[in-house]
């Protein structure tokens, strides 16, 4: 009974904080900033399932984020579909691409997998730039419709915040359940020793492929939400640097830590905002933070904070 109680408490508090913030914060700017934290958390938690738990590095994750945004964007702008009708298409497209790309790529390990996914991310980004007729090219695709239900607009202010964070909470719930299950154990086993996981009967190729597709679908969902919130998409949002930033969120927050994804995404979304005077040195600052975290908190900030708390409690 105790873990169930703990879960109710944790999720209750989580929902409470989101609701309170959405209801009390009046500034559109800070509402949107918090919504962006939610989008990045969604991306980070999906990537963390792949990277942190299954141990498969992806340097092209922003491509799936972009696919979700562009598939939905092109269908709504060029064909006039309702955004809601494009959602399953966007998710399916990203999942299908992940499946086809993952089949050969996930046979690679370590640096080779990183290189393979990096190449994939770049190719997708070039396609966004070059298929001008459909994607609007480097200058982007404007005029996306906003998300609405009846007369309620879900792309602005507190409503957008609730929608995005609602998705985050559902994703957290799903991910926590996967981690603590037969498949979750198999994925973690692959991380520690792929050879041993195979030797005890895990179909490592299909398990890796499944989690790769899962992470891609989550990213596409984030892309869909982003596209209809901003109503304008351009390739630079989904480039290589975006992929690296996602990896940094996972590593800084903590590999194999679902709540760490929240911390990492929050830090890397809010920090540039507070440090915008250093905008030109943004990448240098990221690099420094990443280095310091790797040296002093190799398990990520979240797990180290938990450890500090436990040490203080036992004293």
């Amino acid at each position, binding site marked *: 009974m105790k873990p169930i109680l703990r879960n109710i408490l944790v999720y209750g508090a989580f929902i409470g904080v989101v609701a309170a913030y959405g209801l009390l914060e009046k500034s559109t700017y800070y509402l949107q900033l918090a919504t962006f934290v939610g989008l990045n958390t969604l991306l980070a938690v999906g990537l963390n399932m792949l990277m942190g738990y299954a141990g498969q590095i992806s340097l092209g994750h922003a491509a799936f984020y972009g696919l979700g945004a562009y598939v939905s964007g092109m269908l709504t702008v060029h064909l006039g579909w309702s955004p809601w009708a494009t959602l399953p298409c966007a998710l399916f497209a990203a999942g299908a691409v992940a499946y086809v790309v993952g089949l050969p790529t996930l046979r690679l390990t370590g640096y080779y997998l990183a290189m393979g996914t990096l190449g994939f991310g770049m190719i997708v980004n070039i396609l966004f730039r070059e298929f001008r007729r459909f994607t609007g090219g480097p200058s982007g695709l404007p005029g996306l419709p906003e998300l609405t239900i009846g007369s309620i607009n879900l792309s602005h202010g507190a409503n957008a915040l609730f929608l995005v964070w609602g998705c985050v909470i559902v994703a957290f719930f799903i991910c926590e359940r996967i981690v603590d299950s037969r498949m979750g154990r198999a994925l973690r086993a692959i991380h520690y020793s792929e050879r041993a996981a195979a030797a*005890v009967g895990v179909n490592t190729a299909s398990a890796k492929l499944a989690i790769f597709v899962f992470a891609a679908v989550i990213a596409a969902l984030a892309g869909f939400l982003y596209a209809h919130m901003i109503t304008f998409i351009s390739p630079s949002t989904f480039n290589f640097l975006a992929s690296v930033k996602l990896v940094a969120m996972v590593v800084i927050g903590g590999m194999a830590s679902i709540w760490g994804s929240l911390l990492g995404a929050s830090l890397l979304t809010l920090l540039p905002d507070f440090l915008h005077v250093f905008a030109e040195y943004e990448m240098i600052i990221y690099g420094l933070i990443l280095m310091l975290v790797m040296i002093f908190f190799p398990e990520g900030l979240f797990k180290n904070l938990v450890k500090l708390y436990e040490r203080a409690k036992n004293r």
Partner: protein
Amino acid sequence: MNAPKTDESARPLLALDGISKSFGGVRASHDVSFAVERKSITGLIGPNGAGKTTLFNIITGVYSKDCGSIFFDGQDLGKSPVHKRVSMGIARTFQNVELFSGMSVLENVLVGRHVRTKCGFFGAVARLPRHREEERLAQKYCMEMLDFVGMAHVAKKPAGDLPFGWQRLVEIARALASQPRLLLLDEPAAGLNAMETKQLGELLGQIRQRGVTLLLVEHDMSLTMEVCDYIAVLDQGRKIAFGTPRQIQADKAVIAAYLGQEEF
């Protein structure tokens, strides 16, 4: 191609027929044939580089063989992948113990139960009564396996924190969790002290009593001679002898391979 048609219970559990494998120009296995009888303990010995571990990897499907056939319970294993062979009933342990170090001991054994459970991603999220029941039974079975090897008291500990001898026992429990009919042990006594080796010998006997057939690579000669019913001897990729421990100890070719040849 079919295995010789005989009475089912008399048919060997595992039959190797002319297995060869080369890496580049190196012949790791050359025309190896022998059979492992049901419910026997069969040892595989030979000097370093004789091709014992290669043979293990061919039987479990990690390496593909260049030619020859492997029959498991009369069924040609062909090119079936590693995880398929585990579900057919072939389990293994590693020479250097490969546990999932950051996971708990019980979780390690639960991964060993993977092929006997079905819950996928949907079941993980939905957690319907049948998924909960499957998980409960899996945990129960794995705790029994841990109890069997005497490691139930550390079930919640991270596997990487255990002393080496205990890790080896956990690895055996993990292999047993898949309910194998054939268990391949790669140097199970390596790194164990005399006391632990003796206990291991007893454990191997108990595993056999559960109806599991054992095939082990082992360097510890006293253990091998004591627990094995049959021994196959490899030298430079070839099988040079097969027989009971007594026959092997008296075999001229074996003595030559281990101690060096005096004549020719």
